[in-house]
């Protein structure tokens, strides 16, 4: 540790990847800086002006050199690009067994909700060694979920879902920041991520749950809003059945198709007319203003929990 750290702790699987790329870039940067600084110093001293009338012989250039110092840096930058892009690719592909956590940013706090219904503000408790997937949005301005120790950052944008994931590798307490400027108390919008040993995490989970899991709360909301009047499980209602919907490819009026992911369900609740399922009328009213972002997340978890209706062909249901 010491008084002055130069590098942040590595607490996720991404951290060493990112740091290794950084070391490579640092090496390249130091090499080229030194090469240029030393050349300048050497030339400036070796060829300093000794009399006012000096006239050096003009050298107009050399194509071989120009090609050399274009091609070599270009090759190096392509290494940087490929390396950086491969990390980015991994960062955007959460594993299937990831633990889901929902995140809502608002001025100026992070609201987090676990599948079991545990809610947190400005704190996130997660187990070590397990991939965690965050699905996030914002209620107002754009925010950005940033955990330096994990080397991950993702904007939370109002009106849509963004996702990110990480796999903590080291138990501990790490800074959580909002990295996208969002107004007066932007610098206070943050807190801590607690990475816990699995047993501690289980203990924390059982202590924190109050009033049902996310899906159970979603079901309550589903009933309160009387969604089931139209969305009947057997498909006999005026609206499509939601059983086994999640992950399926949906045929829309007009011929297009869409994958039923979190973003699609969110849109269908808040802007139901945006995408109409083939064979149904545009009759659903909007629930914008009636359901909070957290409510939408609960509804999504409820819909995810709905199994396929009895006797449905298994092929239509995506494995999750």
């Amino acid at each position, binding site marked *: 540790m010491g008084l002055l750290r130069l590098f942040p702790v590595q607490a996720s699987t991404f951290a060493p990847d990112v740091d290794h790329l950084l070391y490579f870039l640092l090496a390249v940067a130091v090499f080229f800086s030194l090469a240029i600084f030393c050349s300048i110093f050497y030339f400036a001293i070796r060829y300093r002006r000794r009399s006012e009338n000096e006239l050096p012989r003009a050298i107009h250039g050399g194509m071989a050199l120009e090609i050399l110092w274009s091609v070599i840096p270009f090759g190096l930058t392509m290494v940087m690009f490929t390396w950086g892009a491969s990390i980015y690719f991994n960062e955007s592909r959460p594993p299937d067994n990831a633990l889901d956590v929902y995140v809502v940013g608002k001025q100026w706090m992070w609201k987090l909700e676990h599948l079991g219904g545990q809610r947190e503000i400005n704190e996130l408790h997660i187990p070590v060694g397990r991939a965690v997937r965050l699905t996030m949005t914002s209620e107002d301005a754009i925010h950005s979920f940033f955990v330096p120790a994990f080397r991950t950052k993702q904007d939370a944008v109002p009106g849509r879902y963004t996702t990110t994931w990480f796999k903590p590798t080291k138990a501990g307490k790490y800074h959580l920041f909002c990295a996208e400027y969002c107004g007066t108390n932007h610098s206070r919008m943050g807190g801590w991520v607690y990475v816990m040993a699995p047993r501690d995490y289980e203990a924390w989970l059982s202590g924190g749950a109050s009033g049902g899991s996310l899906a159970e709360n979603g079901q309550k909301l589903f009933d309160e809003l009387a969604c089931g009047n139209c969305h009947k499980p057997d498909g006999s209602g005026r609206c499509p059945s939601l059983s086994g919907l999640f992950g399926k490819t949906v045929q829309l009026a*007009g011929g297009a198709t869409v994958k039923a992911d979190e973003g699609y369900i969110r849109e269908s609740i808040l*802007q139901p*007319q*945006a995408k109409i399922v083939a064979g149904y009328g545009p009759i659903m009213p909007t629930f914008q203003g009636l359901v909070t972002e957290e409510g939408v997340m609960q509804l999504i978890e409820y819909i995810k929990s709905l199994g396929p209706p009895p006797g449905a062909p298994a092929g239509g249901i995506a494995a999750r």
Partner: protein
Amino acid sequence: MASTLQEQFDTEAQQKDASTLGMWIFLITEVMFFGGMFTAYTVYRRAYSDAFAVASSSLNVTIGAINTAVLLVSSFTMVMAVRAAQLGQRRTLILFLVATLIFGGIFLGVKAYEWNEKFEQHHVPGPSFHLEGVPQQSHAQLFFSLYFAMTGLHALHMVIGVGIISWLIWLARQGRFTAEYNTPVDIAGLYWHFVDIIWIFLFPLLYLIDRHLPK
């Protein structure tokens, strides 16, 4: 003729070349300016094509087509004005400039009528906005926001153009243009045609493009 040559130039030809090039570059900046609007339009038309189709179909094609014709004719009269200026025909020049001015005025008048219609039909974005046949009102409202922003900016350019042509008429009446010196008429012509061309893009994008889709 020395009076029309500014001191930084060596010859009339150089001065005319410079002015023309300057206007062309200015028009390029205008393309980029409208380009930002067209980008926004494209993004939202792609996202909300159904609402945009209905909103687009609610516009009055007949009026739009008439205005397109008016503007094309005004471009023709502008060309004739430029030609008259190059030939040094003062009376013809003034005649065609006035004609261009009138057609420009008609366009703006028709546009004002059309906007007023939108107010009456509650097609102006705001709390009382309503468009029949669109379930997601806010998407149709986006179309009309862009409609007003784009046609409004175009109309602003027309107003500036009308101002420039009035100024040219005033100069022409004083006999300032000759067969040798007519650069202002020439570059004003470039500007006028450019504003026309913007409309040639706006008309199909806003009025025509979604007509084939189900209402």
